Protein backbone atom coordinates (compact mmCIF):
# COMPACT_ATOMS: atom_id res chain seq x y z
CA UNK A 1 0.00 0.00 0.00
CA UNK A 2 2.81 2.35 0.91
CA UNK A 3 4.49 1.65 -2.39
CA UNK A 4 1.23 2.42 -4.19
CA UNK A 5 1.00 5.84 -2.50
CA UNK A 6 4.61 6.57 -3.32
CA UNK A 7 3.98 5.91 -7.00
CA UNK A 8 0.94 8.16 -6.98
CA UNK A 9 2.94 10.92 -5.34
CA UNK A 10 5.79 10.57 -7.84
CA UNK A 11 3.34 10.65 -10.75
CA UNK A 12 1.74 13.82 -9.44
CA UNK A 13 5.13 15.48 -9.05
CA UNK A 14 6.08 14.49 -12.59
CA UNK A 15 2.82 15.84 -14.04
CA UNK A 16 3.23 19.10 -12.13
CA UNK A 17 6.83 19.49 -13.25
CA UNK A 18 5.93 18.87 -16.87
CA UNK A 19 3.05 21.37 -16.69
CA UNK A 20 5.28 24.05 -15.24
CA UNK A 21 7.93 23.36 -17.88
CA UNK A 22 5.29 23.90 -20.60
CA UNK A 23 4.42 27.32 -19.20
CA UNK A 24 7.92 28.71 -19.64
CA UNK A 25 9.00 30.62 -22.72
CA UNK A 26 10.75 28.51 -25.33
CA UNK A 27 14.45 28.98 -25.80
CA UNK A 28 14.92 30.63 -29.17
CA UNK A 29 17.97 32.17 -30.82
CA UNK A 30 16.58 35.37 -32.32
CA UNK A 31 17.50 39.04 -32.19
CA UNK A 32 15.45 42.10 -33.04
CA UNK A 33 17.46 45.20 -33.96
CA UNK A 34 15.88 48.60 -33.38
CA UNK A 35 17.61 51.51 -35.08
CA UNK A 36 16.91 55.18 -35.69
CA UNK A 37 16.42 56.21 -32.06
CA UNK A 38 19.01 57.72 -29.72
CA UNK A 39 19.77 54.25 -28.25
CA UNK A 40 20.09 51.46 -30.82
CA UNK A 41 18.71 48.26 -29.33
CA UNK A 42 19.49 44.62 -29.88
CA UNK A 43 16.76 42.60 -28.18
CA UNK A 44 17.03 38.84 -27.90
CA UNK A 45 13.98 36.60 -27.75
CA UNK A 46 14.65 36.12 -24.03
CA UNK A 47 14.77 39.90 -23.57
CA UNK A 48 11.39 40.24 -25.28
CA UNK A 49 9.80 37.59 -23.05
CA UNK A 50 10.85 39.59 -19.97
CA UNK A 51 9.27 42.86 -21.15
CA UNK A 52 5.68 43.96 -20.61
CA UNK A 53 3.29 41.62 -22.42
CA UNK A 54 -0.11 42.78 -23.67
CA UNK A 55 -2.96 40.79 -25.18
CA UNK A 56 -4.77 41.93 -28.31
CA UNK A 57 -8.02 40.00 -28.60
CA UNK A 58 -9.80 39.31 -31.90
CA UNK A 59 -7.63 41.57 -34.02
CA UNK A 60 -8.39 42.05 -37.71
CA UNK A 61 -5.71 41.48 -40.36
CA UNK A 62 -6.89 42.82 -43.74
CA UNK A 63 -6.13 40.48 -46.63
CA UNK A 64 -6.42 41.46 -50.27
CA UNK A 65 -8.61 38.50 -51.13
CA UNK A 66 -11.31 39.67 -48.77
CA UNK A 67 -10.44 36.70 -46.55
CA UNK A 68 -9.73 38.86 -43.52
CA UNK A 69 -8.31 37.01 -40.52
CA UNK A 70 -9.22 37.58 -36.89
CA UNK A 71 -6.92 36.20 -34.20
CA UNK A 72 -5.66 37.05 -30.73
CA UNK A 73 -2.03 38.00 -30.20
CA UNK A 74 0.23 38.57 -27.22
CA UNK A 75 3.56 40.34 -27.09
CA UNK A 76 5.50 43.49 -26.37
CA UNK A 77 4.05 46.90 -27.28
CA UNK A 78 6.20 48.56 -29.91
CA UNK A 79 5.74 51.83 -27.99
CA UNK A 80 7.63 50.33 -25.04
CA UNK A 81 10.43 49.09 -27.29
CA UNK A 82 10.69 52.52 -28.89
CA UNK A 83 10.79 54.18 -25.49
CA UNK A 84 13.80 52.06 -24.59
CA UNK A 85 15.35 52.89 -27.97
CA UNK A 86 15.02 56.61 -27.32
CA UNK A 87 12.56 57.24 -30.13
CA UNK A 88 10.80 60.58 -29.68
CA UNK A 89 8.65 60.93 -32.80
CA UNK A 90 8.72 59.37 -36.24
CA UNK A 91 6.94 59.44 -39.58
CA UNK A 92 7.28 55.75 -40.40
CA UNK A 93 8.99 52.49 -39.53
CA UNK A 94 10.72 50.14 -41.95
CA UNK A 95 10.29 46.58 -40.76
CA UNK A 96 12.64 44.01 -42.30
CA UNK A 97 12.28 40.24 -42.17
CA UNK A 98 14.76 37.39 -42.25
CA UNK A 99 13.89 36.46 -45.84
CA UNK A 100 14.70 39.91 -47.20
CA UNK A 101 11.13 41.22 -47.17
CA UNK A 102 10.70 44.77 -45.91
CA UNK A 103 7.84 47.22 -45.62
CA UNK A 104 7.58 50.86 -44.63
CA UNK A 105 4.69 51.44 -42.21
CA UNK A 106 3.30 54.84 -41.32
CA UNK A 107 3.31 56.07 -37.72
CA UNK A 108 -0.51 55.94 -37.64
CA UNK A 109 -0.52 52.28 -38.65
CA UNK A 110 2.10 51.52 -35.99
CA UNK A 111 0.11 53.20 -33.22
CA UNK A 112 -1.13 49.96 -31.58
CA UNK A 113 1.48 47.58 -32.92
CA UNK A 114 3.09 44.85 -30.86
CA UNK A 115 5.96 42.47 -31.41
CA UNK A 116 3.97 39.29 -30.91
CA UNK A 117 5.36 36.12 -29.34
CA UNK A 118 2.04 34.27 -29.04
CA UNK A 119 -0.89 33.73 -31.37
CA UNK A 120 -4.16 32.49 -29.89
CA UNK A 121 -2.29 31.66 -26.66
CA UNK A 122 0.30 29.47 -28.40
CA UNK A 123 3.94 30.41 -28.83
CA UNK A 124 4.31 31.35 -32.49
CA UNK A 125 7.62 29.55 -32.65
CA UNK A 126 5.80 26.29 -31.86
CA UNK A 127 2.42 26.86 -33.51
CA UNK A 128 3.72 28.37 -36.77
CA UNK A 129 7.48 27.82 -36.87
CA UNK A 130 7.71 29.12 -40.46
CA UNK A 131 6.22 32.43 -39.30
CA UNK A 132 8.00 32.76 -35.99
CA UNK A 133 9.40 33.15 -33.50
CA UNK A 134 8.16 36.74 -33.50
CA UNK A 135 5.80 38.70 -35.71
CA UNK A 136 5.00 42.36 -36.03
CA UNK A 137 1.26 42.76 -35.46
CA UNK A 138 -0.30 46.01 -36.71
CA UNK A 139 -4.03 45.86 -35.89
CA UNK A 140 -6.55 46.93 -38.55
CA UNK A 141 -3.92 47.17 -41.30
CA UNK A 142 -3.23 45.17 -44.47
CA UNK A 143 -1.46 41.83 -44.11
CA UNK A 144 1.75 43.07 -45.74
CA UNK A 145 2.44 45.10 -42.58
CA UNK A 146 2.33 42.00 -40.36
CA UNK A 147 5.95 41.08 -40.90
CA UNK A 148 6.77 37.61 -39.68
CA UNK A 149 10.30 36.66 -38.64
CA UNK A 150 10.94 40.36 -38.17
CA UNK A 151 14.62 41.13 -37.55
CA UNK A 152 14.82 44.90 -37.73
CA UNK A 153 12.70 47.94 -36.96
CA UNK A 154 14.22 51.04 -38.55
CA UNK A 155 12.57 54.21 -37.28
CA UNK A 156 12.35 56.95 -39.92
CA UNK A 157 12.26 60.62 -38.76
Amino acid at each position, binding site marked *: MKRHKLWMFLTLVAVLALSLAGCGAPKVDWTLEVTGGSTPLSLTYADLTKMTQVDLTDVLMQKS*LGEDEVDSWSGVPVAEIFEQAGVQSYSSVTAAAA*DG*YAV*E*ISADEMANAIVALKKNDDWITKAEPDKGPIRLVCPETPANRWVFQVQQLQVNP
Partner: protein
Amino acid sequence: MSVHQSHEASTGHPARPRAIGRPTHGGPSPSSAGGIRPRSFALLAIALLLLIASACAPQTTTLIDPGGAEVAVTRATLRELERFAEDEQAVPLERVLYANGYRLIDTLHVVPEKGEPLTFDWLSVAATARWQRNGEVHIGEQVLRPARIEGIAPQMPAQPTTGPLDIAPTAAKVLGLRAPADAAGTALELPPASRVVLIFLDAFGYLRYTEARDAGLIPTLAAFGEPALGLTVYPPSTAVATAALLTGAPPEVNSVEDRGIRTTFNETLFDVVAAAGLRGVAIEGDALAFNMRSADVTLSGDRDGNGGTDDNVLANALAVIEAGTPDLLWIHFHGIDDVGHTYGPGTPEEEAKIVEVDAAVATVLAALPEETAVLIFADHGMHTVAEEGRLGNHGNLVVRDMLVPVWAFVK
Protein backbone atom coordinates in the same frame (compact mmCIF):
# COMPACT_ATOMS: atom_id res chain seq x y z
CA MET B 1 -6.09 2.83 -72.36
CA SER B 2 -5.33 -0.66 -71.05
CA VAL B 3 -4.68 -3.92 -72.87
CA HIS B 4 -5.73 -7.18 -71.23
CA GLN B 5 -3.79 -10.34 -72.03
CA SER B 6 -4.34 -13.91 -71.00
CA HIS B 7 -2.06 -15.19 -68.31
CA GLU B 8 -0.49 -17.61 -70.76
CA ALA B 9 0.21 -14.99 -73.32
CA SER B 10 1.65 -12.61 -70.76
CA THR B 11 3.99 -15.15 -69.20
CA GLY B 12 5.01 -16.88 -72.38
CA HIS B 13 3.80 -20.31 -71.29
CA PRO B 14 2.22 -22.36 -74.09
CA ALA B 15 -1.51 -22.85 -73.77
CA ARG B 16 -2.45 -26.21 -72.39
CA PRO B 17 -3.89 -28.66 -74.94
CA ARG B 18 -7.60 -29.24 -74.61
CA ALA B 19 -8.55 -32.36 -72.70
CA ILE B 20 -9.62 -35.07 -75.05
CA GLY B 21 -12.68 -37.16 -74.32
CA ARG B 22 -14.00 -34.78 -71.65
CA PRO B 23 -17.76 -35.12 -71.49
CA THR B 24 -19.55 -32.07 -72.86
CA HIS B 25 -23.08 -33.31 -72.62
CA GLY B 26 -25.01 -35.24 -70.07
CA GLY B 27 -24.25 -35.70 -66.42
CA PRO B 28 -22.65 -33.22 -64.06
CA SER B 29 -18.94 -32.77 -64.16
CA PRO B 30 -17.06 -34.04 -61.13
CA SER B 31 -16.32 -30.54 -59.85
CA SER B 32 -19.70 -28.93 -60.30
CA ALA B 33 -21.12 -29.99 -57.02
CA GLY B 34 -23.01 -26.68 -56.52
CA GLY B 35 -24.61 -26.92 -59.94
CA ILE B 36 -22.33 -24.30 -61.58
CA ARG B 37 -20.38 -25.61 -64.50
CA PRO B 38 -16.64 -24.86 -64.54
CA ARG B 39 -16.89 -23.01 -67.85
CA SER B 40 -19.65 -20.74 -66.55
CA PHE B 41 -17.71 -20.12 -63.37
CA ALA B 42 -14.56 -19.24 -65.32
CA LEU B 43 -16.48 -16.88 -67.60
CA LEU B 44 -18.08 -15.20 -64.61
CA ALA B 45 -14.72 -14.77 -62.91
CA ILE B 46 -13.14 -13.35 -66.07
CA ALA B 47 -16.03 -10.91 -66.50
CA LEU B 48 -15.65 -9.82 -62.88
CA LEU B 49 -11.90 -9.34 -63.28
CA LEU B 50 -12.41 -7.31 -66.43
CA LEU B 51 -14.92 -5.13 -64.61
CA ILE B 52 -12.52 -4.52 -61.72
CA ALA B 53 -9.61 -3.93 -64.08
CA SER B 54 -11.53 -1.37 -66.11
CA ALA B 55 -12.53 0.47 -62.94
CA CYS B 56 -8.93 0.55 -61.71
CA ALA B 57 -7.35 1.41 -65.06
CA PRO B 58 -5.80 4.88 -65.03
CA GLN B 59 -8.00 7.41 -66.78
CA THR B 60 -6.33 9.23 -69.63
CA THR B 61 -7.39 12.48 -71.19
CA THR B 62 -6.02 13.54 -74.53
CA LEU B 63 -4.73 17.08 -74.48
CA ILE B 64 -4.08 18.75 -77.80
CA ASP B 65 -0.99 20.91 -77.33
CA PRO B 66 -0.58 24.30 -79.09
CA GLY B 67 1.29 22.58 -81.93
CA GLY B 68 -1.61 20.20 -82.55
CA ALA B 69 0.08 17.13 -81.08
CA GLU B 70 -1.87 14.74 -78.86
CA VAL B 71 -0.56 14.44 -75.31
CA ALA B 72 -1.88 11.92 -72.79
CA VAL B 73 -2.66 13.44 -69.40
CA THR B 74 -2.66 10.83 -66.66
CA ARG B 75 -2.45 10.70 -62.90
CA ALA B 76 1.32 10.72 -63.30
CA THR B 77 1.05 14.05 -65.14
CA LEU B 78 -0.91 15.51 -62.25
CA ARG B 79 1.52 14.14 -59.68
CA GLU B 80 4.35 16.06 -61.39
CA LEU B 81 2.37 19.28 -60.88
CA GLU B 82 1.30 18.59 -57.30
CA ARG B 83 3.57 21.32 -55.97
CA PHE B 84 1.14 23.82 -57.49
CA ALA B 85 -1.92 22.18 -55.96
CA GLU B 86 -3.94 24.36 -53.63
CA ASP B 87 -5.22 21.25 -51.92
CA GLU B 88 -4.33 17.58 -52.06
CA GLN B 89 -7.09 16.76 -54.47
CA ALA B 90 -6.67 19.18 -57.35
CA VAL B 91 -4.12 20.86 -59.62
CA PRO B 92 -5.06 24.12 -61.37
CA LEU B 93 -6.08 23.16 -64.90
CA GLU B 94 -4.04 26.07 -66.20
CA ARG B 95 -0.87 24.52 -64.76
CA VAL B 96 -1.48 21.43 -66.88
CA LEU B 97 -2.01 23.59 -69.96
CA TYR B 98 1.10 25.70 -69.26
CA ALA B 99 3.23 22.59 -68.69
CA ASN B 100 2.14 21.41 -72.13
CA GLY B 101 3.16 24.57 -73.96
CA TYR B 102 0.16 26.89 -73.70
CA ARG B 103 1.03 30.57 -73.22
CA LEU B 104 -2.17 32.36 -74.35
CA ILE B 105 -5.66 30.89 -74.35
CA ASP B 106 -8.86 32.47 -75.61
CA THR B 107 -11.29 29.55 -75.41
CA LEU B 108 -11.11 25.97 -74.20
CA HIS B 109 -12.83 23.11 -76.02
CA VAL B 110 -13.67 20.07 -73.91
CA VAL B 111 -15.05 16.79 -75.25
CA PRO B 112 -16.45 14.84 -72.28
CA GLU B 113 -16.47 11.05 -72.21
CA LYS B 114 -20.23 11.35 -72.26
CA GLY B 115 -22.31 14.22 -73.48
CA GLU B 116 -21.91 17.10 -75.89
CA PRO B 117 -18.64 19.01 -76.45
CA LEU B 118 -18.36 22.23 -74.46
CA THR B 119 -16.60 25.53 -75.11
CA PHE B 120 -15.46 27.85 -72.32
CA ASP B 121 -14.34 31.48 -72.38
CA TRP B 122 -10.99 30.98 -70.64
CA LEU B 123 -10.90 34.44 -69.06
CA SER B 124 -14.13 33.64 -67.20
CA VAL B 125 -13.13 30.25 -65.84
CA ALA B 126 -9.32 30.12 -65.72
CA ALA B 127 -8.88 31.18 -62.11
CA THR B 128 -11.01 28.37 -60.68
CA ALA B 129 -10.67 25.53 -63.21
CA ARG B 130 -9.20 22.45 -61.49
CA TRP B 131 -8.06 19.00 -62.48
CA GLN B 132 -9.03 16.61 -59.70
CA ARG B 133 -6.91 13.63 -58.77
CA ASN B 134 -9.85 11.36 -59.46
CA GLY B 135 -9.80 12.43 -63.11
CA GLU B 136 -12.63 14.91 -62.93
CA VAL B 137 -12.12 18.36 -64.36
CA HIS B 138 -14.03 21.18 -62.70
CA ILE B 139 -14.64 24.18 -64.96
CA GLY B 140 -17.05 26.82 -63.76
CA GLU B 141 -20.15 24.98 -62.61
CA GLN B 142 -19.34 21.93 -64.74
CA VAL B 143 -17.87 18.69 -63.41
CA LEU B 144 -16.51 16.76 -66.38
CA ARG B 145 -14.65 13.62 -67.27
CA PRO B 146 -12.95 14.86 -70.41
CA ALA B 147 -11.78 12.61 -73.20
CA ARG B 148 -10.19 15.51 -75.06
CA ILE B 149 -9.16 19.07 -74.21
CA GLU B 150 -7.89 21.73 -76.57
CA GLY B 151 -7.09 25.40 -75.97
CA ILE B 152 -7.63 27.92 -78.73
CA ALA B 153 -5.17 30.82 -78.88
CA PRO B 154 -6.47 34.36 -79.34
CA GLN B 155 -6.15 36.09 -82.68
CA MET B 156 -3.14 38.36 -82.46
CA PRO B 157 -2.33 41.38 -84.60
CA ALA B 158 1.36 40.60 -84.05
CA GLN B 159 3.48 38.04 -82.25
CA PRO B 160 5.39 38.99 -79.08
CA THR B 161 9.02 39.75 -79.77
CA THR B 162 10.35 40.30 -76.26
CA GLY B 163 9.59 39.79 -72.58
CA PRO B 164 11.02 40.04 -69.06
CA LEU B 165 13.92 37.72 -69.86
CA ASP B 166 15.42 40.30 -72.23
CA ILE B 167 15.64 43.14 -69.69
CA ALA B 168 18.66 41.98 -67.64
CA PRO B 169 20.78 41.04 -70.69
CA THR B 170 19.95 44.42 -72.27
CA ALA B 171 20.89 46.39 -69.15
CA ALA B 172 24.09 44.36 -68.68
CA LYS B 173 25.12 44.90 -72.30
CA VAL B 174 24.62 48.67 -72.02
CA LEU B 175 26.90 48.68 -68.97
CA GLY B 176 29.50 46.57 -70.76
CA LEU B 177 28.87 43.62 -68.45
CA ARG B 178 27.98 40.00 -69.05
CA ALA B 179 24.39 38.92 -68.55
CA PRO B 180 23.46 37.10 -65.30
CA ALA B 181 24.69 33.51 -65.34
CA ASP B 182 21.41 31.80 -66.19
CA ALA B 183 19.95 34.47 -68.45
CA ALA B 184 18.13 33.01 -71.42
CA GLY B 185 16.91 36.31 -72.89
CA THR B 186 18.43 38.32 -75.70
CA ALA B 187 19.75 41.86 -75.36
CA LEU B 188 17.66 44.44 -77.18
CA GLU B 189 19.53 46.68 -79.63
CA LEU B 190 20.33 50.08 -78.13
CA PRO B 191 22.79 52.86 -78.93
CA PRO B 192 25.72 53.24 -76.50
CA ALA B 193 24.86 54.73 -73.09
CA SER B 194 26.58 55.41 -69.79
CA ARG B 195 23.94 54.12 -67.38
CA VAL B 196 20.62 52.31 -67.31
CA VAL B 197 17.30 53.23 -65.76
CA LEU B 198 14.63 50.54 -65.48
CA ILE B 199 11.12 51.96 -65.04
CA PHE B 200 8.73 49.26 -63.84
CA LEU B 201 5.01 50.01 -64.38
CA ASP B 202 3.27 47.40 -62.26
CA ALA B 203 0.19 45.87 -63.97
CA PHE B 204 0.26 48.17 -67.01
CA GLY B 205 -0.46 45.43 -69.57
CA TYR B 206 -0.22 45.88 -73.31
CA LEU B 207 -3.98 46.09 -73.90
CA ARG B 208 -4.33 48.66 -71.15
CA TYR B 209 -1.52 50.61 -72.83
CA THR B 210 -3.38 50.67 -76.17
CA GLU B 211 -6.62 51.71 -74.48
CA ALA B 212 -4.91 54.44 -72.45
CA ARG B 213 -3.06 55.66 -75.54
CA ASP B 214 -6.26 55.83 -77.56
CA ALA B 215 -8.02 57.66 -74.72
CA GLY B 216 -5.23 60.25 -74.58
CA LEU B 217 -4.29 59.36 -70.99
CA ILE B 218 -0.57 58.81 -71.53
CA PRO B 219 1.02 61.63 -73.55
CA THR B 220 4.50 60.79 -72.21
CA LEU B 221 4.46 57.09 -72.99
CA ALA B 222 2.68 57.63 -76.30
CA ALA B 223 5.44 60.03 -77.36
CA PHE B 224 8.00 57.21 -77.01
CA GLY B 225 6.36 55.49 -79.96
CA GLU B 226 4.90 52.03 -80.29
CA PRO B 227 6.45 49.71 -77.67
CA ALA B 228 7.66 46.21 -78.45
CA LEU B 229 5.04 43.58 -77.71
CA GLY B 230 6.20 41.48 -74.77
CA LEU B 231 4.98 38.15 -73.41
CA THR B 232 5.49 37.92 -69.67
CA VAL B 233 6.23 34.81 -67.62
CA TYR B 234 3.69 32.53 -65.98
CA PRO B 235 1.98 33.00 -63.65
CA PRO B 236 1.80 36.69 -64.55
CA SER B 237 2.48 38.17 -61.11
CA THR B 238 4.97 40.61 -59.64
CA ALA B 239 7.26 38.20 -57.81
CA VAL B 240 7.51 35.73 -60.71
CA ALA B 241 8.12 38.49 -63.25
CA THR B 242 10.60 40.30 -60.99
CA ALA B 243 12.70 37.15 -60.65
CA ALA B 244 12.66 36.78 -64.45
CA LEU B 245 13.49 40.47 -64.92
CA LEU B 246 16.44 40.28 -62.52
CA THR B 247 17.89 36.95 -63.64
CA GLY B 248 16.91 36.86 -67.30
CA ALA B 249 15.96 33.24 -66.58
CA PRO B 250 12.50 31.66 -66.81
CA PRO B 251 10.62 30.63 -63.65
CA GLU B 252 11.52 26.97 -64.12
CA VAL B 253 15.19 27.97 -63.85
CA ASN B 254 15.15 30.74 -61.25
CA SER B 255 12.78 28.70 -59.02
CA VAL B 256 10.31 31.55 -58.52
CA GLU B 257 7.39 29.70 -60.06
CA ASP B 258 4.56 31.14 -58.03
CA ARG B 259 3.37 34.09 -56.01
CA GLY B 260 4.67 34.30 -52.48
CA ILE B 261 8.25 33.32 -53.29
CA ARG B 262 10.41 36.34 -52.59
CA THR B 263 13.93 35.23 -53.33
CA THR B 264 15.88 33.71 -56.17
CA PHE B 265 19.25 32.11 -55.60
CA ASN B 266 20.26 32.53 -59.24
CA GLU B 267 22.56 35.41 -60.11
CA THR B 268 20.72 38.70 -60.67
CA LEU B 269 21.48 41.83 -62.65
CA PHE B 270 22.21 43.65 -59.38
CA ASP B 271 24.67 40.86 -58.41
CA VAL B 272 26.50 41.34 -61.73
CA VAL B 273 26.55 45.12 -61.32
CA ALA B 274 27.84 44.92 -57.74
CA ALA B 275 30.49 42.34 -58.64
CA ALA B 276 31.78 44.74 -61.30
CA GLY B 277 32.14 47.49 -58.70
CA LEU B 278 29.25 49.50 -60.15
CA ARG B 279 26.36 50.97 -58.18
CA GLY B 280 22.83 49.65 -58.37
CA VAL B 281 19.91 51.38 -56.65
CA ALA B 282 16.33 50.16 -56.35
CA ILE B 283 13.45 52.49 -55.47
CA GLU B 284 10.45 50.48 -54.36
CA GLY B 285 7.01 51.32 -52.99
CA ASP B 286 6.05 50.77 -49.36
CA ALA B 287 6.84 47.05 -49.45
CA LEU B 288 9.72 45.13 -50.93
CA ALA B 289 7.84 42.46 -52.82
CA PHE B 290 11.04 40.71 -53.82
CA ASN B 291 14.50 40.37 -52.34
CA MET B 292 16.61 42.93 -54.23
CA ARG B 293 19.91 41.44 -53.17
CA SER B 294 23.03 43.51 -54.04
CA ALA B 295 20.97 46.65 -54.64
CA ASP B 296 20.92 49.76 -52.49
CA VAL B 297 17.19 49.68 -51.68
CA THR B 298 15.00 52.62 -50.73
CA LEU B 299 11.42 51.98 -49.69
CA SER B 300 8.79 54.63 -50.35
CA GLY B 301 6.04 54.42 -47.77
CA ASP B 302 2.97 56.62 -47.91
CA ARG B 303 4.50 59.14 -45.52
CA ASP B 304 2.16 61.92 -46.62
CA GLY B 305 -0.86 59.70 -46.07
CA ASN B 306 -2.48 60.43 -49.44
CA GLY B 307 -3.32 56.78 -50.02
CA GLY B 308 -0.68 56.04 -52.66
CA THR B 309 3.07 55.53 -52.86
CA ASP B 310 3.87 56.51 -56.46
CA ASP B 311 4.45 60.14 -55.42
CA ASN B 312 6.84 58.88 -52.74
CA VAL B 313 8.60 56.62 -55.27
CA LEU B 314 8.96 59.60 -57.60
CA ALA B 315 10.36 61.81 -54.82
CA ASN B 316 12.89 59.16 -53.81
CA ALA B 317 13.91 58.56 -57.45
CA LEU B 318 14.43 62.26 -58.06
CA ALA B 319 16.55 62.51 -54.90
CA VAL B 320 18.77 59.66 -56.09
CA ILE B 321 19.12 61.17 -59.58
CA GLU B 322 19.91 64.59 -58.15
CA ALA B 323 22.62 63.09 -55.95
CA GLY B 324 24.20 61.45 -59.00
CA THR B 325 22.45 58.88 -61.16
CA PRO B 326 23.80 55.41 -60.33
CA ASP B 327 24.97 52.97 -63.00
CA LEU B 328 21.75 51.01 -62.63
CA LEU B 329 18.55 52.56 -61.27
CA TRP B 330 15.37 50.52 -60.79
CA ILE B 331 12.17 52.53 -60.22
CA HIS B 332 9.04 50.53 -59.41
CA PHE B 333 5.67 52.31 -59.62
CA HIS B 334 3.04 50.12 -57.91
CA GLY B 335 -0.02 52.35 -58.09
CA ILE B 336 -1.70 51.01 -61.23
CA ASP B 337 -1.66 47.51 -59.71
CA ASP B 338 -2.90 48.66 -56.29
CA VAL B 339 -5.78 50.71 -57.71
CA GLY B 340 -6.54 48.12 -60.39
CA HIS B 341 -7.04 45.40 -57.78
CA THR B 342 -9.30 47.62 -55.71
CA TYR B 343 -11.41 49.35 -58.37
CA GLY B 344 -10.76 47.27 -61.50
CA PRO B 345 -9.07 48.19 -64.77
CA GLY B 346 -10.79 50.86 -66.86
CA THR B 347 -12.40 52.59 -63.89
CA PRO B 348 -11.97 56.35 -63.28
CA GLU B 349 -9.77 55.61 -60.26
CA GLU B 350 -7.43 53.40 -62.27
CA GLU B 351 -7.36 55.84 -65.17
CA ALA B 352 -6.40 58.65 -62.79
CA LYS B 353 -3.53 56.53 -61.54
CA ILE B 354 -2.36 55.82 -65.10
CA VAL B 355 -2.34 59.58 -65.77
CA GLU B 356 -0.35 60.14 -62.56
CA VAL B 357 2.22 57.47 -63.43
CA ASP B 358 2.60 58.78 -66.98
CA ALA B 359 3.35 62.23 -65.55
CA ALA B 360 5.81 60.69 -63.07
CA VAL B 361 7.65 59.01 -65.96
CA ALA B 362 7.89 62.41 -67.68
CA THR B 363 9.38 63.94 -64.53
CA VAL B 364 11.94 61.15 -64.18
CA LEU B 365 12.89 61.42 -67.86
CA ALA B 366 13.36 65.17 -67.57
CA ALA B 367 15.67 64.73 -64.58
CA LEU B 368 17.87 62.03 -66.12
CA PRO B 369 21.21 62.99 -67.63
CA GLU B 370 21.93 62.46 -71.32
CA GLU B 371 23.29 59.09 -72.49
CA THR B 372 20.99 57.18 -70.17
CA ALA B 373 19.46 53.98 -71.52
CA VAL B 374 15.81 53.78 -70.47
CA LEU B 375 13.83 50.56 -70.35
CA ILE B 376 10.15 50.89 -69.47
CA PHE B 377 8.10 47.75 -68.99
CA ALA B 378 5.32 46.05 -67.07
CA ASP B 379 5.43 42.80 -65.13
CA HIS B 380 1.90 41.74 -66.09
CA GLY B 381 -1.49 43.17 -66.97
CA MET B 382 -4.83 42.82 -65.25
CA HIS B 383 -8.37 41.76 -66.03
CA THR B 384 -11.70 42.65 -64.46
CA VAL B 385 -13.11 40.31 -61.81
CA ALA B 386 -16.06 40.50 -59.47
CA GLU B 387 -14.73 39.09 -56.22
CA GLU B 388 -15.20 40.09 -52.64
CA GLY B 389 -12.48 42.59 -51.82
CA ARG B 390 -11.26 43.22 -55.35
CA LEU B 391 -12.42 44.08 -58.82
CA GLY B 392 -9.24 43.44 -60.77
CA ASN B 393 -6.78 40.55 -60.79
CA HIS B 394 -4.09 38.82 -62.84
CA GLY B 395 -2.38 35.47 -62.97
CA ASN B 396 -3.83 33.68 -65.98
CA LEU B 397 -2.84 32.71 -69.52
CA VAL B 398 -4.99 35.42 -71.05
CA VAL B 399 -4.08 38.35 -73.27
CA ARG B 400 -4.92 40.97 -70.65
CA ASP B 401 -2.57 39.40 -68.10
CA MET B 402 0.24 38.04 -70.27
CA LEU B 403 0.97 40.75 -72.84
CA VAL B 404 3.12 43.68 -71.73
CA PRO B 405 4.62 46.74 -73.44
CA VAL B 406 8.39 47.24 -73.53
CA TRP B 407 10.04 50.53 -74.49
CA ALA B 408 13.81 50.73 -74.88
CA PHE B 409 15.68 53.87 -75.93
CA VAL B 410 18.54 56.14 -74.98
CA LYS B 411 17.92 59.66 -73.77
